[in-house]
């Protein structure tokens, strides 16, 4: 349990500290593709990076999409403002799967590489945020999760990734993927640093109607529930590592029990239906003349004009637009979109029942870190199936945290703990406890003092 933020504040920095930091970081970035751009005028504060789908005033914010190239928002996201007020210094925008569409950080122009071995994926969609956290000693990442975009890369890159209760951190300034599911969260090298930035970022924001003004709690749980259905699809190595982890928990005086939740299998289709439906409406605004990529041939009819612009979308974005437009169309809406909303409400109820008495724990990802080349071979459906562990808490807006608990073949693996709505600090507290038992290994310490 170490706070890098506290340590940084007390240590004296060399005069050209930030210049050196940026120089070394840019060098490493050529290999890993963690950052889309850097803030060369950074000269003070605790460095924080911002996922590229979160607006920073005057800084190109593209959500790693070609269609948003040159978009410099005229305003800051609320979370960016709040951190800057707390003497944090903006470092740069981090790479991601285009608009958040992906779990491995490869659905973009410059695929992200795992800092432990660059043949492997970094996870996604907040790939750059996780890499930055893994390679920078003093840094926190502002990231975002819709269906697991914080947990997945945090697990693959061996850092702490925290996703708060839906509505706890303002989404003002977030370039939307699926508004009813999107949550801004954080990555750090320790749980206590997550706690610190969360504390600075919460609170009602009049610019986001869905942002809440609630006091987050820190009520510990001794019980950990494992959902049987989620254990079925685990890779063998992950399964045995996770079983060992559960034994360690018992050794720390926690209790582990197994529960059934058959309906959890409906989480993936429900998630993909709702998120694609919302995404397809959010992406409708990219028509090529107000911001970002511009079609300059004004002799075209409007339909041809915006169709030309929308060729800039990557394959996965196009797939989700088509899927999302289909599931909300009048003839099938009840069968897909409306039904998915009902599944979400039902699962929410079932999850909450389990969470009243316990945390829910699982591995973060069902597989060991895959190679980039292997993921490229998967079909979209195989790809989506790998989100089974991260989707349930995201679909239900529950606070959850992924943290490293072991290493397989030199690559970190992560576990995920889910808590009740608004008991956000409790899952962070648990990881603070875990960190007393288990020391993370970081391969790089760029910016070390």
């Amino acid at each position, binding site marked *: 349990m170490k706070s890098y933020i506290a340590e940084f504040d007390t240590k004296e920095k060399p005069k050209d500290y930030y210049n050196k930091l940026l120089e070394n970081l840019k060098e490493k970035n050529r290999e890993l593709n963690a950052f889309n751009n850097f803030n060369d005028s950074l000269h003070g504060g605790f460095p924080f990076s911002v996922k590229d789908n979160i607006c920073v005033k005057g800084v190109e914010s593209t959500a790693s999409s070609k269609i*948003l190239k040159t978009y410099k928002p005229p305003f800051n996201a609320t979370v960016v403002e709040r951190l800057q007020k707390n003497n944090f210094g903006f470092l740069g925008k981090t790479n991601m799967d285009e608009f958040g569409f992906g779990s491995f950080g490869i659905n973009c122009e410059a695929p992200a590489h795992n800092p432990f071995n660059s043949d492997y994926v970094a996870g996604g969609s907040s790939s750059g945020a996780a890499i930055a956290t893994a390679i920078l000693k003093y840094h926190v990442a502002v990231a975002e999760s819709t269906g697991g975009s914080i947990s997945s890369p945090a697990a693959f890159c061996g850092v702490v990734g925290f996703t708060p209760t839906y509505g706890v951190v303002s*989404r003002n300034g977030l370039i939307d993927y699926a508004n009813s599911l999107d949550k801004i969260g954080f990555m750090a090298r320790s749980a206590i640093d997550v706690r610190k930035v969360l504390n600075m970022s919460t609170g009602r924001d009049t610019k986001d*109607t*869905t942002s809440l003004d609630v006091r987050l709690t820190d009520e510990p749980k001794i019980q950990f529930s494992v959902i049987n259905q989620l254990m079925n699809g685990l890779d063998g190595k992950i399964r045995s590592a996770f079983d060992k982890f559960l034994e360690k928990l018992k050794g720390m005086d926690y209790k582990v029990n197994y529960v059934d939740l058959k309906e959890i299998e409906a989480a993936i289709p429900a998630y993909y239906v709702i998120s694609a439906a919302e995404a*397809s*409406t959010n992406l409708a605004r990219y028509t090529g003349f107000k911001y970002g990529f511009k079609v300059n041939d004004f002799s075209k009819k409007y339909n041809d004009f*915006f169709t030309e612009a929308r060729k800039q979308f990557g394959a996965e974005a196009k797939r989700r637009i088509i899927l999302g437009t289909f599931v909300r169309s009048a003839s099938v809406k009840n069968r897909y979109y409306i039904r998915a909303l009902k599944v979400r409400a039902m699962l929410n109820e079932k999850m909450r029942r389990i969470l009243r008495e316990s945390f829910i724990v699982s591995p973060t990802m069902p597989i060991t870190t895959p190679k980039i080349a292997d993921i490229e071979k998967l079909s979209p459906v195989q790809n989506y199936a790998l989100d089974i562990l991260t989707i349930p808490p995201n679909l239900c807006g529950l606070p959850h945290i992924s943290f490293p608990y072991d290493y397989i073949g030199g690559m970190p693996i992560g576990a995920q703990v889910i808590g009740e709505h608004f008991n956000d600090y409790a899952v962070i507290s648990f990881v603070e406890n875990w960190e007393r038992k288990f020391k993370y290994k970081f391969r790089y310490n760029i910016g070390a003092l």
Partner: protein
Amino acid sequence: MKIGLEVHVALPTKTKLFCSDSTAETKEPNSQICPICVGFPGSRPVLNKEAVRVAKSIAIALNCSVKDKISFIRKVYFYPDLPKSFQITQLSESIGSEGSIELEKKKIRIRRIQIEEDPAQIIREGGYTLLDFNRSGTPLVEIVTEPDITTEEELRETVFTLRTILHYQGVDVNQEIKTDLNISLAEDRVEIKNVTGIKNLIAAAQYEIARQGAIIEKGGVPEKETRSFDAASGTTKASRKKESEEEYGFIYEPDLTVYDTKNLAENAMRIPTKIARDLAVKHNANYKTILELIAFDTGALNLISTFEDEFSFNTIIASLEIMKRFGEPSNSNVFKEILNLTDQKIDITREVLKKIKSGDKVEIKKFSESQIDETIRKMLNSDATIVEKYKKNKNVVNFIIGTISKKYGIQPREAAVRVESVINKL
């Protein structure tokens, strides 16, 4: 014949529906815009409560049931004036439903009243399509009626009645009201989209009634289709045919939470149709006359309330009509003088009105018809032969007419009428 309307009116709020930009008129294009009403990525809507409050008032004024909890939806379509390529509007959880517009003799049912955002303004100029986003995000209500209108006369009365009710809710009824209307003389609905202004609405309906009537007369059946109205030629034209039903792919607007309308205080419920009806019953007067006087003139209504106990209702109505005839605003402080004169059956001319307005009231006020007659009688009495002479030559009373006209500030012709009537009564 069946006609139904979808009427769009801008709400009288200072700021837009989802951002804090002004809704005031401005000449400079794109001067009242922000990331929200231009749909920049990262921005999100924040609901203007005042717009909901006014919309709630309108819903109540139109006899709708008002939902305690309302929500918004996204209506997705691609058009250059639509910054997000979806419009935030309402459907099943709209502010009002199942209301009515009460005409003199029937009710036109209202299906739904919904709050929505106005798109940007398209300006076609020199071969270009220009966009002015000042209008983008202006709060609108869309009032959807059932197809209960069955004659052109009813259409006019519906529009008139709706406008007066909206006027009493503070809506600027001189704005260019945009209407979609559906007209079916036979089985299938013909929709005419986006008709601007009341005049065009009537003209579009007239043309369409004639067009469909002609088809039926020839033994044909008007096709189900969407048409547009061309104001220059006064005709409707078939719009480009679509292969399928319009598909808007509605989903809930996830950036706005369900909004509780219970605590919104509605406007004072002054409903001109009800007021006119009550006054007509109370004073045994004509409903239509009253409604026409107060329809777009709350000042007239205030004058009625102020003087209702002091003067006879007929005098008040007659006085208001005089004001209207001379284009006097109904808040005028000369109204009491006019009431007095009307009460004394003094014919008010432009001359008289000028005098009243210049503050020269007392003189006029003094002389009622009976006072004038009294003076005439006195002058006649001073010459015992004059009546006899008059029977042979009417010119003998010319000097009396001249004197009366001058003294009382009335037209010589009117003075002559008075003199003649006094002589006849002798």
